[in-house]
């Protein structure tokens, strides 16, 4: 099976070259790099990226890997439009790229094109979202952070610090990922956990008062897990108004949050290390295409949780400024 796939892959690579030559003269625009003609590997990274700060770091990681490995990277961002993302994958299959890295933000919309890619012999790695679906679709592995595992990590941190009662703040009601973070924290925390929804980042005033109310309602709360950086900063402010000092943890990075960590007001934040998601997807595809390696043994490869605490915050701050964290 493996050898035949490898053979298929090299045939595919050759086909890319042919396709590049033939399509370049045809009606479609020459999206495939001309260097494909020299047998160079082309990897398409098709994400639901909105080109925000988060994805710009993923892109930097992918670009660094492509440069180091000498492959061509085709970065395609659908800006949260799953239909568009599906079309992009289909186009890449038609263009016979060497490998596809895809984020499964909407598995239902993408499963068809991804299966088609696998059927066409193009290796696929999923990144960022899709840890529970990648196997079913025939992808080699998944590179990302499982929200639940991230929550587990936070729960352990709180438990290790001796906290007894945890308040988990979700800034978006009904968001699957945020709920999974809270559930994950509850799993490993062991103690009593209260979860609240807040009005979210669009309304910091109301959110702060809601967080304050929840803390005030139960004076035994000694740990707060905010599932986003804005919520964590608001939790710091709410705690200051109430004159209490719970241990506060968060997910993802922001300037204010890093400043609060440096000041010791926030104990930690969980970094997805999304740079790895870009870098490793390209690397894994490259290793598979050139050497037939599969990573993960059928399990996803976790890029997080990486913890940012007072100890490494200065270093992380510098890396954030250079755009790789």
């Amino acid at each position, binding site marked *: 099976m493996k050898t035949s796939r490898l053979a298929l892959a090299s045939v595919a690579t050759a086909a890319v070259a042919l396709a590049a030559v033939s399509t370049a003269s045809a009606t479609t625009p020459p999206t495939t790099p001309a260097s494909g003609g020299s047998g160079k590997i082309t990897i398409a990274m098709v994400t639901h990226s909105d080109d925000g700060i988060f994805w710009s770091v993923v892109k930097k990681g992918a670009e660094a890997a492509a440069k180091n490995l000498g492959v061509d990277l085709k970065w395609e961002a659908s800006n949260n439009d799953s239909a568009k993302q599906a079309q992009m994958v289909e186009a890449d299959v038609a263009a016979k790229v060497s490998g596809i890295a895809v984020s499964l933000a909407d598995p239902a919309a993408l499963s068809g094109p991804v299966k088609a890619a696998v059927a066409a012999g193009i290796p696929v790695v999923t990144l960022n979202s899709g840890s529970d679906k990648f196997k079913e679709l025939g992808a080699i592995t998944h590179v990302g952070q499982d929200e639940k595992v991230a929550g587990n990590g936070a729960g352990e941190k709180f438990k290790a610090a001796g906290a007894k009662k945890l308040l988990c703040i979700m800034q978006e*009601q009904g968001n699957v990922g945020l709920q999974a973070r809270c559930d994950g924290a509850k799993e490993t925390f062991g103690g009593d956990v209260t979860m609240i929804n807040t009005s979210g980042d*669009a309304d910091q005033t109301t959110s702060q008062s*809601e967080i304050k109310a929840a803390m005030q309602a139960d004076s035994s709360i000694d740990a707060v897990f905010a599932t986003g950086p*804005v919520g964590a900063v608001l939790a710091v402010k709410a705690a200051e108004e109430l004159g209490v000092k719970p241990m506060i943890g968060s997910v993802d990075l*922001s300037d204010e949050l890093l400043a609060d960590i440096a000041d010791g007001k926030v104990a930690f934040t969980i970094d997805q290390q999304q740079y790895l998601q870009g870098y490793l997807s390209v690397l894994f595809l490259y290793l598979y295409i050139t050497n037939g390696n599969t990573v993960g043994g059928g399990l996803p490869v976790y890029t997080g949780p990486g913890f940012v605490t007072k100890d490494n915050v200065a270093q992380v701050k510098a890396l954030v400024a250079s755009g790789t964290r």
Partner: protein
Amino acid sequence: MSTTEAAAAPADSEPRDERIAFRGPMQRLLISPEIGAIVGATLVWALFWATGQQFGEASATLSWLDAAAPFGIMSVAVALLMIGGEFDLSSGVIVGSTGIFVGIFAQRFMGNGGPLWMAIVLAFLAAACIGWINGWLVNRTGLPSFIVTLATFFVLRGVNLVFSKRLMNKVIVENINGETIKDIAGFQWWLSDKWNYKAASFGWRNQVFFGLVLAGAVLLVAGLLEQSLKRRTDRPPAWAPVGTVVGLAATVLGIVLAHTTDGVGANLLAGLVGLLGAVVATVSWAAWRYETHGPTGTFSLTGRALLLTIVGAACVLLAWLVTRPLKLDDRRQLLSIPPHAIKVLIGAVAAVVAGGLALRYALGKLLRARSGGQTVGALAVPRVAVITAIAAGLGLTTVIVFLQMATVQGFRAIVLIGLGVLGIVLLLVAKGAARKTSTRAQLLPGLIAVVAIVGYAVVLRADSHAVRFRAGLFTVLLLIAAAVLANTIIELHQVKRVAFETRPDRVGRGLASLGVFLAGGGLALRLLFSGQNIYRWIVWWLVITAVAAFVLSRTKWGNWIFAVGGNKEAARAVGVPADQVKVGLFVMVSLLGCLVGVMTALRFGSVTAAAGVGKEFEYIIGAVVGGCLMTGGYGSVIGASVGAMIAPITLNGIPLSKWNSDNRFIFLGVVLLAAVLVNQKIRKKAQEAR
């Protein structure tokens, strides 16, 4: 409490123009647009006050006031615009846009940031331009403002994202604080800072508060009496002045005693002294100053008044009986308590009751139509069946959903408060209905209501281990009972005024306003010296509401706003500069949005690209709950200001009461719908009654 002054008018008076018909102070309050918001906010507040242990404290109060302030400012602005007949869907996003603009300008202009004053001035100019464009497009194209401002909304939302990403490289603009913006301090003092006075720095805080509230209540009562009773011309009875002074002294003594003693018996005694003192004082004052006549009619009740009295009394009794076996601190899910059969039974009873009521209503309507000689089609009977089935289904679903969500504690609070308050309200309505037949007939429901309220107060106090129930709620309920009792006695023998009289009306209004002002001032003092943070924008909110209310009711611009909202062409025909008024309103909304945006940015030091998105509907809801019509030409800014409190009260009350916050939107939706319905219903009733 009495809504039927006009009904007591002599039958032989010549028919008048209904627009200048006399209305008593209560009736005026009931037909005012803000009544739904006031009732809604009060009920929601009372619910959380009863269920959340810390909800009534200064800290929690300032917390929800803080959340309500920006919301209230925008609801006032949106209410003015809606009265002027337009919507602004960009009113939410502009809060974010201006904040982002100020943050970026102050940090990135010319490389390392421009002066903050320039950023703020430019933000206001830009906001004014956006408002002007909105208004100009609406005037010029005649398109609905809904569409035009939706376009502005999308554009601004996109601009927020594009600029914060391009210039700050992320979806949040941060570091709007003293470290990166040097000249921020002066602006923060005005816009985002807070007061915090130690509770201990003003030792007489509580005494001054009680003194001011008491003085305010006295003035309010005097003002209401002045507006609804007829001045006497003959000599008053000798006991009247004595009774007034003695009664007032007893009231003060009772309240002071209730707050300085802590035993249940002593409290009860003090409460009774205060209650009777207040009644004696009010009745004596009324006899001293106003004309009396002998009671009329019989004491017996008939028809609707009788039915309402019985149902009301039953509700109060039921509220007491149902909650006896349930424990106050039982936090178990209600669904987990009774055996399955009982739940099914409760659901079935609810379904039958709801279905039955709907059947009765639909059948009644059908029969009325038939007896009125209308042809009732063959579809009528199936329609009645469908209505009944839907009502039964709704009743069942509501009960099941309720059982699913509520804890024993919550259920208990809801029944005790909901059913108890409903019963008392029904008794008061019965009293009003009985008043229509004779002054004597209202005595019985009035007295039952007094007994019910006193009993309710005693039950609630004995029921709770929270300190505030022992003193605060007890006092409030006893005061209400005293007011009802005094009202019952006064209605028995006092002559009501049935026509406008300029001087007493003005004096009465002045007294009542002064009373409200004093009581409000007392509350403000108490909050100010609570040792908690009071953010500046709460003051901005109060000032903006006051200015807007003044402009709307006392100036020609207010008339213009009502006129263009009611009928733009007609307004233009009588010389109102309709286009300018509309543009002005749009600009005003944008400017206030900018004010809130700048205040938020300086306060939190960061603005996300999503800031304010979706809030525009909440502003509109605040205005609608506050009595603004979606069609324009009618509404109130005070109502909008109060309506804007409902969501923050709810969103703060739910975590404080430790309810599951997943339910909050269900709760909020029901509350908002109920407030609007109450608004509509009461206004309709009050207008019918005049």
